[in-house]
């Protein structure tokens, strides 16, 4: 149906972004294909070293899901920040990802954790890493006839894991001006065995900070040395600039948020739970 409809057909699931765009006449699809009730696209299940989530799984379901809480703690952490509760009642995992807003929290988690996006185009299936899925603001590698059907989030089996997430916005649950996510696993000595870090809303697509990860691996993420490392890691980032937040502001905010996220993840991994939101 989608292939036959050409550029005038759009998929709709939760409709929490597409319908506002239609209301503002920024999107004028002639046909909508509602996939919200396709049962096979709504699931959360363990698949080896990953948790697979169907594209039409509603955000409010993920917010409360035990498998997500236990195995993808970073995703569980960001869910309360995704829109407001009534938006999460209808909004879906795949809808947020396919929409590719630079400020979207779920997209940040997908890139930070190195999730695998599962797509279908007609009869053909394809998989690609989250980092290649997002190609620009509101733009993905999907062709207009393709559909994101699910996502596999890698599960870390390490004994001690901590996650951290922070964002800054004008009002609670509005679009973030900058956000940062961190997941840290500890070795037997309590140092970083491995870690993954990402920033959102700062650049056109969520960005993973590989160089900073390598720098901090094996260390104890001492707060005194952290700022220098974080600032250096963000030096080559070219932030977005708009009416709400300048490039300079985004860079400074990202540095602070990243430090908080790393510190939270570190403390959580060490069993010192931070209640800061």
């Amino acid at each position, binding site marked *: 149906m989608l292939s036959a409809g050409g550029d005038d057909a759009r998929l709709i699931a939760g409709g929490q972004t597409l319908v506002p765009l239609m209301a503002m006449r920024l999107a004028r699809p002639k046909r909508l294909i509602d996939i919200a009730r396709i049962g096979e696209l709504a699931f959360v299940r363990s698949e080896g070293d990953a948790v697979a989530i169907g594209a039409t799984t509603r955000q409010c379901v993920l917010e409360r899901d035990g498998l997500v809480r236990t195995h993808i703690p970073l995703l569980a952490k960001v869910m309360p920040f995704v829109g407001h509760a009534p938006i999460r009642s*209808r909004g879906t995992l795949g809808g947020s990802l396919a929409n590719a807003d630079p400020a979207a929290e779920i997209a940040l988690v997908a890139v930070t954790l190195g999730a695998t996006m599962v797509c279908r185009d007609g009869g053909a299936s394809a998989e690609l890493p989250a980092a290649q899925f997002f190609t620009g603001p509101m733009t993905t590698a999907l062709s207009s006839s393709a559909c994101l059907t699910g996502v596999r989030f890698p599960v870390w089996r390490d004994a001690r894991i901590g996650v951290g997430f922070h964002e800054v916005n004008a009002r609670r649950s509005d679009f973030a001006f900058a956000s940062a996510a961190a997941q840290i696993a500890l070795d037997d000595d309590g140092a970083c065995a491995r870690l993954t870090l990402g920033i959102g809303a700062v650049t056109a697509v969520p960005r993973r900070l590989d160089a900073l990860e390598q720098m901090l691996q094996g260390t104890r993420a001492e707060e005194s040395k952290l700022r220098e490392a974080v600032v250096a890691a963000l030096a080559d980032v070219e932030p977005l600039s708009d009416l709400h937040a300048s490039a300079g502001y985004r860079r400074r905010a990202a540095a602070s948020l990243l430090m908080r996220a790393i510190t939270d993840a570190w403390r959580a991994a060490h069993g010192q739970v931070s209640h800061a939101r």
Partner: protein
Amino acid sequence: MHVELTVNGSTQALEVEPRMSLLDALRERLLLTGAHAGCEHGVCGACTVLIDGAPIRSCLMFAVQADGYAITTIEGIAPGPGELSPIQDAFCETHGMQCGYCTPAMILTAHALLAGNPAPSRAEIVEAISANICRCTGYAQIVEAVALAAERMRGLNQPAAGRP
């Protein structure tokens, strides 16, 4: 398109244009005008109704997508004609409304909150109603109303104090 909407316990069959929002279907076809049209793009929350007990924006859902869900509007909250629910009562008593435009949505949001959390903290109440905008900015009394309603509803099935 044909759709069967189950609203406040009664099911009605309608023929609607595919593009008709659930909000418009409720207001214009079923004459349930308690769900209000505010921004009509999902920001203000004035159009909030419950589907299967969860608050949603009825302006962001097409009527045809609502087929089969149990929809609750403000008209379905009171226990009987001429009566008020404990939440509605509390909004009256604490003056939890000024112009009233956001009120049905605030009450439905509170209803969903208290159904899952009978003793919410102030922060949890604020978090729940953060999805609803009150342009009169009477938030303090709205929070007070939800807290009062919660307290009363918790006491509903308790023996009266002093009873042997």
